């Protein structure tokens, strides 16, 4: 028989995780779908389940002394969308995730833990160089979201660890974001792109580009981004085709029931071109 644990303190939760391998349930919007067996039946859990939504100390949205935004594991999209502390670009992304009902249940940390290549929140998190805090009885460690997600549903989490927090550094850029899905709401991303840039004195001070749904994880190439730092806007624009070519090997989408490889690849490049044209 599997067991269910409903800790009310972090300490209690970490102790349970230290003793056993558990599914971790937050809002349930991914896990309850994945384990769904049918109407009137209990979800099909094959190991113990730990529920985190009663750990009140993980319920917060705040900024720390360094100006980082810190979000607890319990916090749902709807709360983030209503918080004045959350950058607008995140809200733009959240608005297009699932549906209002789902956003009243789903947590940001859950989206990270689910590690889907189509996870929309991963784009701004990646672009902002956000970090997750993993807690265990041994202590805390921080990992960049970019590194934390290793592949399709693969994350750098030990069995005894709980993602307790997301840390989002301040990031003063101009943004571009496009999500392409099957329809205008409740749509799973076919391909997406977020770009961020900063221009000072006609020169590129910062350039960041993140793709969604075109590979096993969200794609960001720091090498290419750095290559164009310090270049003039005119040079960037003159080299749009080169840049698109440089990303070619990164864009490795698949064909599935929602779209085709050809479409994803073409649109990813179109979006990149569209973003680069926006840089001014």
């Amino acid at each position, binding site marked *: 028989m599997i067991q269910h644990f409903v800790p009310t303190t972090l300490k209690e939760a970490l102790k349970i995780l230290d003793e056993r391998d558990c599914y971790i349930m937050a809002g349930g919007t991914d896990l309850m779908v994945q384990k769904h067996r049918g109407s009137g039946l209990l979800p099909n859990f094959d190991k113990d389940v730990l529920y985190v939504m009663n750990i009140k100390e993980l319920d917060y949205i705040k900024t720390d002394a360094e100006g980082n935004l810190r979000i607890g594991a319990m916090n749902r999209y709807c709360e983030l969308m209503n918080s004045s502390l959350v950058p607008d670009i995140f809200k733009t992304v959240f608005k297009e995730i699932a549906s209002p009902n789902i956003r009243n249940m789903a947590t940001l940390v859950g989206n990270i833990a689910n590690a889907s290549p189509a996870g929309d929140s991963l784009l701004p998190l990646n672009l902002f160089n956000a970090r997750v805090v993993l807690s265990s009885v041994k202590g805390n460690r921080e990992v960049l979201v970019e590194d934390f997600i290793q592949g399709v549903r693969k994350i750098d989490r030990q069995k005894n660890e709980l993602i307790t927090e997301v840390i989002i550094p301040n990031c003063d850029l101009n943004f571009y974001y496009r999500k392409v899905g099957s329809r205008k709401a409740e749509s*799973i991303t076919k391909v997406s792109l977020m770009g961020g840039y900063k221009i000072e004195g006609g020169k590129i001070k910062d350039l960041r580009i993140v793709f969604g749904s075109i590979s096993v994880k969200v794609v960001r190439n720091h090498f290419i981004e750095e290559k164009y730092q310090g270049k003039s806007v005119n040079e960037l624009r003159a080299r749009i085709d080169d840049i698109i070519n440089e990303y070619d090997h990164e864009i490795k989408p698949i064909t599935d*029931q929602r779209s085709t490889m050809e479409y994803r690849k073409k*649109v990813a490049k179109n979006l990149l071109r*569209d973003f680069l044209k926006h840089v001014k």
Partner: protein
Amino acid sequence: MKMKKFDTSVKKVDNEEKMSGRAIFTGDIQMDDAYFAIQVRSEKAHAKLKGIYVPKLPKDYYFISAKDIVKENVVNIIASDWPVFADKKVNYIGEAIGLIVGPDKGMCMYLASLVKGEYEELEPVFEMKNSYVHKEFTKGDVSKFKSAKKVFSEEFTTGYQEQVYLEPQAMLMYIQNDQIVVKASMQCPFYIHKAIMRTLGCKEKDVRVIQPAVGGAFGGKEHYPSLMAAQLATAIVKIKKPIKMFFDRKEDITYTTKRHPSKTEISAYVDAKNNIIGVKIHVGIDGGAYVGCSMVVLSRALIAATNTYTFENVSVSGDAYCTNKVPSAAFRGFGSPQSIFAFELFINHLADYLKVDRMELRMKYLVKQGDITSTSGLFRDPIILKELVDKAMEMSDYKHKVKLYSKEKSYRGIGLSMFLHGCGFTGSGESDLIKAQLRIKKDKNDIVTFYTSQVDFGQGNRTTLKRIVVDTLGIPEDHVIYDAPDTNETLSTGPTAASRTIIIVGGLAAKAAQHLKSIWKDGEEQEIVEPYVGPAYIKWDEATMQGDAYPGYAWGVNIVEVSVDPVTYEVNVEGCWSTYDVGHAIDERIIMGQADGGLAQALGWAYLEKEVAENGMFKQRTMSDYAIPTSMDLPVLETEVLDNPFKYGAFGAKGAGELTFVGGAPAFALALEQAIGKKVHDIPATPEYIMELMNHEN
């Protein structure tokens, strides 16, 4: 805020029960001792079924299969070729080889997963190449085609469409007073009734079908519930316990019937002066593993194949093809949306080919009262199609926009479709096959009760049919009782299908009420059974497809405006304007509901809803992968109905249920063509398809 006024509308009788959550749908019926039935399904698309391995079942669990058939292993659908349980052979993935029935659903599912068919695989066929129904007819003299100076030919395809009624298939069956009682999400109580009688070989009185609230149907609950009923009936005579079979959404999308995919080839034969000598059309539809009702779907597709245009010489043929996939069946429009989509696009493309104005060519061949139909019947009644076009153009500012968007790279377009829909069953089907009889009675207190087998699954017919009787009798509304069908009380007034409810059953209800009124005696019990008598002019030969196909036609115009994002190839529907001739609209609010809902579904079919089968298995099996429109995908839908009372309909009404679906896809596709400057031949026009079009030469 733009608001419609519903001067002719009354309060819908089922409003309060549905809004308050009090309406009892099949799944809401409390019957705790009911067993669960789970279909055990074929994993092969085409194979000999050499045996079935069944594990040792715990007490109270049963495996029901072809061996348990009482009388006939056939589902009573028109063609009668679909078995209740596969026997010796399976013909599609998902075909039921049996049922596991027992008290615990989880256990039933587990046991069902252990049951294994022993198969010897046969070569499956997934393409449209093996015809199992062929039909053809001609009009005029098709030998004149040979004199053509130019021939223009094109091919069009349409995809599967899943009904996505919000309530999945659900059925509950139990035994009460020596009757098998069925409560289910259904369209046609007497189809279920007959299906059970046929497989069990029992009498009419042995079966009772009662209709609970039904959460949408759109054709999807016309035939499939007959299969479920035949399966459960086979089980219940053995087990003698209440049984329920409720489909989860994934099962429903994956294994129940859908709209037929189609491939239509059209050629126009044109003389030196650009006159169309005639057209030749072939419509192919993918019927899936069993014919079921595909021959009738094909009929409707063929009869509608020249849409709203009259040509002197016409050759029409079609085939329904057998493939090793889930059988296709009824869905709003029943074949005609497929062929009309093709012809509406074709005639526009033909105009381009002939270098003449699109609208001019269409108007030149536009059907008029007195024209001969493609089946050599007669368009008897006044046709106000031109008025419908003018009104829709005015509402949408069409003429201005069509010019404005014709400049290159506007990525915006507007399209106009015209269409018709024949109301009621094809030809003499109403008089010869259905033979509707409507029972109406009055008690000593002068309270009138009438019965129909029509199901209100959202269309509002419970309200409108009652209103027809109330207004005809001229008595207060609360003196008339009209409940959902119960086959113990109701005589069959036919299925809830084919846009026949108002034009046929409504007419019959008015006639019955008139009859009662004429013999009315205060304070006396009176009862009448009124039989349907079709208009005498209807002469139809099914074998040759000649004559008057329908008692009457409803007409419509849709205008759709779209924009296309050249970066992502996504489409935004910017506006929709529609005009309809449904005869006289008895209740405008109900007609508007049909208008909006039909068009929304049509747009879904045109560009959002993609369902493809790979090796006989559907790839889109959930509501996230099979995307129907959300509230954000649709614009404001503007509709007007023009009055054109129909002589033979109740209060002048014709049908409206299916008509509103027919024109959405071609109007959308024409708008899309203008936006991207390419010709469209296939739907759904997904962004993936639009990308291909935009990146290739025509």
